[in-house]
C-alpha cells in the first residue's frame, strides 16, 4: 500500500475509552452468555469476555468489540449516531402503543352449538334474552369504539357462536359503517366462528362488507371432533364444508384458522400441521390452553404443564422449519410474535405478549351484557366470579370511567415487565410480555412469581428454542427473517 494511506489500526479507538450502553445478559450453557440491548438486539459472548467488557478491558482490536459497538452495546464517546439510532428504535417500538385501542371484541352471544371441554364461556342455552347482546348495548359499545384515538379500528365478533345472533352482527356492521362515513377510520371486521351454521346469506353479507372469518381447526378429524363435541359428532365435516363455502364466496385469504392444544393434541404436532396444509392454510398458531373458564373448571388446563406443551411446540416447529426448507412457505404465528421483537424494531402488539400488557390498550372486550373487560381472558375470569379485570359497563359508565378506571391503570402500571421483579433483569424481557391476567388467574398476583410461573417457563422455553435454532441453522434464521417481515 502507498504511504499516504494509513493502516486499519490507526482507525481503532484507544483502549478502554468505550462506554457501556444499557444491556442485560443471561447464561447460555456453561461458558457463554447472551446479551440483549434496549431494543431487543442480541449477541453471544464468552463469559470471560463479559467480565473484560464490563471492566472496560475489552481490546478495540477484538472481534467481539466490533460486534458490540456495531450492535449498540457499547459506544465511543464520539459515537453520536448510536444514541440517535437507539432512541429512534425505541420510539418505533413504542409507537404502536401510542395509538391506544385497536381491537374491539363484541361478544354478541354466549350461546353455542359446540360443547368444547376447554371452552371458556359458552352456553348451550336456548334462552335468547339472557345471553344475547341487545342493539342498545351494541350502540353504547360503538360509542366507545369510536372514542379510541387509533386511526385503525378492528371489530371482532365473538361468542359463543356469533352466527347464532347474526342479526346483531349485521346491525353493528351497518351502524359502524354509517358512522365511519364521517370518522374515516381504517375499519375492519372479523367474525370468529366454527362455520358450522354458516349460510349463503351470511356469507353474501360478509362479502359485501369485506368481513373476514376467523375459524377453528384443532387437527385431524378424530382430534378435532374429540376437542369440539357437538350433536352429531360432525364438527370437522361441518368445518370442512363451511371453509369451502366461505372461501368460494369471500376469497381464499379472507378465512384464517386458529388451533387450541388439548391434552390429546400433544403427541400429534406434525399431523396437526399437515391438517392445516391439507386445507390450504399457509400458517398456524400453536396456541396453548389458557387457564380460564371451563379449562380450569374441567381440569383440562392442568392436564399438561409448560414442559409438555414445549415438547409439542418444538416438534411442530422442527417440522415447520423443515417444510420451509423444502420450499413450502408456512408460518407459525406464536413464534413470529417473539421473532418480530428479536429481529425487528416492530412490536406486533400481540395482547398476551406485551409490556405493558395489552389489556385495554390493544384490545377491549364488550360482553353480551355490556360489561367491558381489558381482555378476553379477563371476561373469562369474570365468568368464574372474579371481577378484578372488569373495567365497567357500557350502560352505567362513561369512556373516562372505563379507560381511566383503577382496574385498567393499576394493571397497566403493574405489568410493565421492565419493572417487574426478575423480569427487570431478565435478558429475554425485551422479547417477552406481562400477561397479568394469566398470573392473577393462576397465582392470585398480577405480576406473578416468575420462577414458578408456567407463562415464564413457556416463554423461556420458546425463546431458548428460537435462539438455538437461529444460531445452529442460518437457513432457519433466513426463513424467520421472512416471517417477521410479512
Amino acid at each position: 500500500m502507498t504511504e499516504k494511506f494509513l493502516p486499519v489500526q490507526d482507525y481503532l479507538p484507544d483502549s478502554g475509552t468505550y462506554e457501556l450502553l444499557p444491556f442485560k445478559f443471561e447464561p447460555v450453557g456453561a461458558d457463554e452468555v447472551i446479551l440483549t440491548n434496549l431494543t431487543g438486539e442480541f449477541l453471544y459472548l464468552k463469559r470471560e469476555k463479559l467480565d473484560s467488557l464490563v471492566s472496560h478491558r475489552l481490546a478495540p482490536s477484538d472481534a467481539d468489540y466490533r460486534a458490540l459497538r456495531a450492535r449498540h452495546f457499547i459506544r465511543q464517546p464520539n459515537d453520536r449516531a448510536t444514541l440517535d439510532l437507539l432512541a429512534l428504535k425505541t420510539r418505533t417500538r413504542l409507537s404502536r402503543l401510542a395509538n391506544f385501542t385497536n381491537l374491539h371484541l363484541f361478544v354478541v352471544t354466549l350461546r353455542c352449538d359446540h360443547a368444547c371441554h376447554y371452552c371458556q364461556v359458552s352456553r348451550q342455552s336456548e334462552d335468547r334474552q339472557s345471553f344475547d347482546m341487545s342493539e342498545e348495548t351494541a350502540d353504547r359499545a360503538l360509542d366507545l369504539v369510536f372514542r379510541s384515538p387509533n386511526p385503525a379500528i378492528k371489530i371482532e365478533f365473538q361468542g359463543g357462536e356469533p352466527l347464532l345472533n347474526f342479526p346483531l352482527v349485521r346491525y353493528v356492521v351497518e351502524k359502524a359503517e354509517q358512522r365511519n362515513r364521517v370518522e374515516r377510520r381504517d375499519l375492519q371486521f372479523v367474525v370468529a366462528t366454527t362455520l358450522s351454521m354458516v349460510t349463503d346469506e351470511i356469507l353474501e353479507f360478509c362479502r359485501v362488507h369485506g368481513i373476514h372469518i376467523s375459524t377453528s381447526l384443532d387437527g385431524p378429524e378424530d382430534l378435532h371432533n374429540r376437542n369440539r363435541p357437538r350433536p352429531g359428532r360432525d364438527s370437522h365435516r361441518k368445518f370442512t364444508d363451511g371453509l369451502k363455502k366461505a372461501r368460494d364466496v369471500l376469497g381464499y385469504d379472507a378465512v384464517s384458522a386458529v388451533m387450541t392444544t388439548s391434552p390429546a393434541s400433544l403427541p400429534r404436532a406434525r399431523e396437526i400441521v399437515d391438517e392445516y396444509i391439507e386445507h390450504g392454510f399457509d400458517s398456524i398458531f400453536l396456541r396453548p390452553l389458557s387457564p380460564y373458564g371451563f379449562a380450569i373448571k374441567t381440569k383440562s388446563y392442568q392436564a399438561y404443564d409448560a414442559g409438555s406443551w414445549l415438547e409439542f411446540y418444538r416438534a411442530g416447529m422442527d417440522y415447520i422449519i423443515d417444510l420451509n426448507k423444502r420450499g413450502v412457505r408456512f408460518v407459525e404465528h406464536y413464534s413470529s410474535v417473539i421473532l418480530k421483537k428479536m429481529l425487528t424494531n416492530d412490536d406486533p402488539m400481540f395482547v398476551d405478549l406485551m409490556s405493558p400488557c395489552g389489556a385495554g390498550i390493544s384490545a377491549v372486550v364488550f360482553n353480551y351484557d355490556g360489561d367491558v373487560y381489558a381482555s378476553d381472558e379477563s371476561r373469562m375470569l369474570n365468568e368464574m366470579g372474579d371481577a378484578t379485570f372488569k373495567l365497567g359497563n357500557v350502560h352505567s359508565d362513561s369512556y373516562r370511567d372505563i379507560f381511566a378506571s383503577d382496574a385498567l391503570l393499576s394493571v397497566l402500571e403493574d405489568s410493565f415487565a421492565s419493572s417487574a421483579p426478575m423480569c427487570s433483569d431478565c435478558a429475554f424481557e425485551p422479547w417477552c410480555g406481562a400477561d397479568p391476567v394469566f398470573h392473577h388467574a393462576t397465582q392470585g398476583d398480577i405480576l406473578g412469581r416468575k420462577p414458578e410461573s408456567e407463562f415464564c417457563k413457556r416463554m423461556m422455553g420458546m425463546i431458548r428454542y428460537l435462539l438455538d435454532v437461529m444460531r445452529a441453522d442460518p437457513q432457519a434464521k433466513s426463513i424467520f427473517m421472512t416471517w417477521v417481515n410479512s
Partner: protein
Amino acid sequence: MLTLSGSALETGLTAPALFRLTTVPDLPAPLRAQRAFLMRGLGDVPEGYPHYLVFDRDPIPANGAAFTRLDEKFAYLSDDDIVHLSPHGHVRTLFRSASNHNSILLTEQCNNYCLMCSQPPKRKDDRWIVDEVRQLVPMMPRTTKSLGITGGEPTLFGDDFLDIIRLCKSWLPTTALHVLSNGRSFADVGFARNYAAVDHPALTVGIPVYSDDPSRHDYVVQEKGAFDETIRGILNLKRFGQRVEIRVVVHKQTFERLPELAEFIARNLVFVDHVALMGLEMMGFTRANLDALWIDPIEYRDELSAAVAVLRAYRIPVSVYNHQLCLINPDVGIAYVKSISDWKNEYVPECDGCARRDECGGFFSSGVKHGYSPSIKPFPHRHPAVD
C-alpha cells in the same frame, strides 16, 4: 472506450465556450445562435451558427465562420450533445444525449480519501466548475431522463451545491437526479433541511456505507469519525423525507462483515430506498492499493448471497452492480443488474461462447486492462435434445 476529453486538431475559437451541438441545418434563427453546427462530410453549410465542428479532412465552412476540427475519436458526437471548447483546442464532452449515464462532476475536492476512489480527490480550489454547471444545466435537453451529480464530494460547496439542485429542478423538472455524496454534510440538520426544502421531485442521494463497524468504515474512507457523520446524515435525510440509496463497494476490506452490514441496515436504516452492492472498479486509487483491495469475487459469493437474502427478507430493494454472472451464486441473480455503463462495458476472451453474455454486465474496460477474476468461465449453451 469513448474519449470524453482530448485535443482538437485545430480551432478558431478566441474564448472558451460551451456548445450544444446540432446537425439540423434549418433551425429557426434564435436557436441557431445557441448551437454549434456539427458538419458531416460535404454539404451546404447553413448560415447563422456561432461555431462549427468538422472532422478530419472534411472541408471547412465556406462562409469563413469560426470552426474547430476534431479527429475521429470524437466521431460519436451527435445532436444535442454538449461540449466545452477552449481556445487552446481542448475539448471536453460534458453531455451525451445518447447516454443514460450523464453526470456532472461538481468538484474534485473531497473530505474522504477512500482506498478505492475511482476519482482521486484534489485539493485545489475548483469552484469555477459551479459556474460552468450553471451554464450547462439550462443547455441540456429537457427530455433528459436522468442526470448524476458527483465529485469529489459535491456537498462541500454548500449553498452552491443546493443552487445547482434548484437549477436542475427549474430547468429539468422531469429529469431524475442522482447525487453521489458521502453524506457527512447532512449530519448538519440545517443543511439537510435546506436540501429537503429544494423539494426536487425526483432526487436521490447515494451514500456509501462500508461496514457496520465504525472503525472499519473510517479506515476504508481514511477519515476518523466519518461513519458517525454519514449515519447521522442518512438519518437527517430520511427524517426530512428524502430518498436515500446506500452504496457498498465490496472488496477485501469490506466483504467479511457484509452480512452483518446488511443486518445493521435492516435493523437501523430499514427506511432507506435502495441498497446497491457493487464490485470493485479498477480505477484511480484501487490500482495503487490493489493488494489491500483485490479479492476474487467468487471468494465472497456466499457473503454476497447472505447480504442479499437479509435485505430482501426485510423488503429493502437491493441491487448487485458491477459483477459478472459466472462469479455469483444463483440466488443473487434476482438482485443482479446489468449495470456497467454503456461506454464502459466489455467482455474478456473467457466470455467467448457464454450462453448468458447478453444478461451479463461484463467488465469495465479498466477491469479488462488491469486484471479480473481467474474464475471467469462461460455458461454452456443448452444443446437441443437429439431425437
